[in-house]
């Protein structure tokens, strides 16, 4: 049993080593830019984690993870913007002036108080995912239909963020001029401190998910992914489990949204763009969506390449990036994690799943009906 696929102890060791390496990494970086860049990658890794949880384990292809990310990012952006407003001289952010507002709208008032603001930034998207998920899964939406409904919902929020300019600044977005200040202490987005805060959240969420998915709850969720009908006949509330896993993934994306604004000091409707949510799915797929760690590494890998090749190749990088996806999908269906599994399986001569056996997609599904479980 050398395979990583079967050996749980080995898996836990790999997870701890991974986060330990990330934790000591800043010791070797004295460059503020690189520290910040890595913090960004970690947040994007968190988004890939949320996709892996909901898609890889829950079998729900959500193209709407950007909703939770975006709502939370706006909440955090509003909180940080209000920290730099002066109640007497500048009671409202200046973009509101263009839109004829003379006093702070009710929507913004709770954000004067930083803890309330951050709490709202996390709670509102999570509740929204619960309600939205209940709506979808009670109607027994599956597969591509979930993808399209989440896509439509995402587009609706995107239009909203654009159009409600008195409250969101529209396309321009909100850029809080100063870093987040917690009880008199400013968290410099370029510091090791910010990096460790972000990393601590990623580690806690990843290990939490790893634990959760190996409980009975996690096993039922995976059983539903593999065959919802059978799980239903066995008496499980399929919708209930799906709503729960969907809400959890929304919460993870919301945490990512809050941390993103903390280290970037900017939020705009681009957080709710279709392109962005699709790319989260891409990261998870590149790394291997069936592996939490794989998805996170996928996000690091794709974004690292984008950041580096974009500078080196200028005009050519999109060709390389696009070509890379085609090659990975064509030859490595389980992503980079699948490559690792194959390698380990070969070394250990243990039987890891072959490249074509993708749980959740029985070979007949494609031909039988496009709307079958995906």
């Amino acid at each position, binding site marked *: 049993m050398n395979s990583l696929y079967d050996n749980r102890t080995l898996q836990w060791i790999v997870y701890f080593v991974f986060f330990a390496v990330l934790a000591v990494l800043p010791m070797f970086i004295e460059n503020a830019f690189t520290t910040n860049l890595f913090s960004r990658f970690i947040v994007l890794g968190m988004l890939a984690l949320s996709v892996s949880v909901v898609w890889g384990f829950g079998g729900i*292809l959500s193209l709407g993870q950007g909703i939770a990310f975006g709502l939370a990012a706006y909440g955090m952006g509003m909180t940080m913007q209000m920290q730099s407003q002066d109640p007497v001289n500048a009671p409202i952010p200046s973009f509101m002036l263009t*839109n*004829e507002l003379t006093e702070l709208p009710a929507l913004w008032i709770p954000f004067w108080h930083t803890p309330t603001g951050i709490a709202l930034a996390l709670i509102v998207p999570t509740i929204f995912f619960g309600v939205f998920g209940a*709506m*979808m899964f009670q*109607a*027994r*939406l599956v597969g*591509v*239909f979930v*993808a*399209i*409904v989440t*896509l*439509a*919902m995402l*587009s*609706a929020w995107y*239009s*909203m963020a*654009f*159009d409600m300019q008195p409250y969101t600044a529209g396309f321009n977005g909100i850029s809080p001029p100063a870093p987040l200040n917690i009880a008199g202490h400013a968290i410099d987005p370029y510091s090791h401190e910010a990096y460790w805060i972000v990393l601590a959240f990623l580690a806690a969420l990843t290990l939490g998910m790893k634990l959760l998915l190996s409980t009975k709850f996690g096993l039922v969720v995976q059983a539903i992914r593999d065959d919802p009908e059978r799980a239903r006949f066995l008496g499980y509330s399929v919708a209930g489990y799906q709503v729960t896993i969907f809400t959890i993934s929304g919460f993870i994306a919301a945490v990512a949204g809050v941390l993103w604004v903390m280290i970037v000091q900017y939020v705009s409707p681009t957080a709710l763009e*279709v*392109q962005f949510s*699709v790319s989260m*799915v*891409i990261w998870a*797929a590149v790394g291997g969506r069936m592996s939490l760690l794989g998805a996170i590494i996928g996000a690091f890998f794709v974004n690292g390449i984008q950041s580096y090749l974009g500078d080196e190749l200028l*005009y*050519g990088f*999109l*060709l390389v*990036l*696009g*070509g*890379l*996806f*085609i090659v*990975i*999908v*064509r030859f490595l*269906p389980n992503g980079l994690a699948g490559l690792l599994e194959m390698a380990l399986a070969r070394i250990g001569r243990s039987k890891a799943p072959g490249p*074509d056996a*993708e749980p959740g*997609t029985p*070979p*007949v*599904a*494609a*031909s*039988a*009906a*496009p*709307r*079958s479980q*995906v």
Partner: protein
Amino acid sequence: MSVDHFWTAFAFGPFMNALLIGLSVASIWLIAALGLAIVYGTMGVINMAHGEFVMLGAYSAFVLERYLGVPFLACIPCAFVIVAAIGAVIELGLVRYLYRRPLDTLLATWGLSLVLIQTVRLILGPEPKNIASPEFLNSSVQFWVFSLSLFRLFVIAVTLATFAGTWWLMHRTRVGLMVRAVMQNKEIASAHGIDTGRVYTLTFAYGAGLAGLAGAMFGAIKNVFPDMGSGYIVEAFLVVVVGGVGSLIGSLVSAVGLGEIYSVFAYFTNGTFAKFWLFLLVVVFLRFRPQGLFAESLGRR
């Protein structure tokens, strides 16, 4: 001030015009969605590069017209042929290896869309291009309270003709019969001696060709640039899903319905707000009718 102008009051003539514009919007969404509907309905392939096929069609028309002097009206069928050929090559080289993994086609075609956009940008440059349309289309007609650009009428006509042609092809020819057989059950169709591989290649090429045809027309209403395709993909998907997968009539009805809803909302409020309501209504609709308006031949489940 913005509040003063937010709501437009009802007036009979302009409202009737808004209904007509709804049809025009519907024709654009339908022609953009038709290829997607066929490819998705038949093969279960979620083609994220569909918008880029639209873009390729626009560029084909541009190159033919600008460099070879082909008249605009002749460019439209040429764009169909060129993009269909590109589609066939892509099916043979990439998509056919992914039929057993339908969701992975989403990723592969997304990668493909990046490659197509950047290749076009490198060859033809990032700046927008212009397709000159014949002078007689650059005017409008008035009748009763209606007023509509001739070009829009032209798009409506081409869309209807294409739709009718596709329906005829699918329901009245032997090839169409084979396609529908494969759509319903690939294994049984195969057992009856239908070459499913060839059917898939033809279907994918035909879907790509329709996108190319759409692109040639869009290029003349708007303009031609490498990223133009992304502007159609979301609406096209909604039209297909609301209409019901695999149903051509469903796509027609849903395109008209969505186009009218959008146009009426845009008349009373504004375009961005109308989009918001459109998306929200689609979500609610699919909540209560997940299979879409007309779900044909869903096969076994």
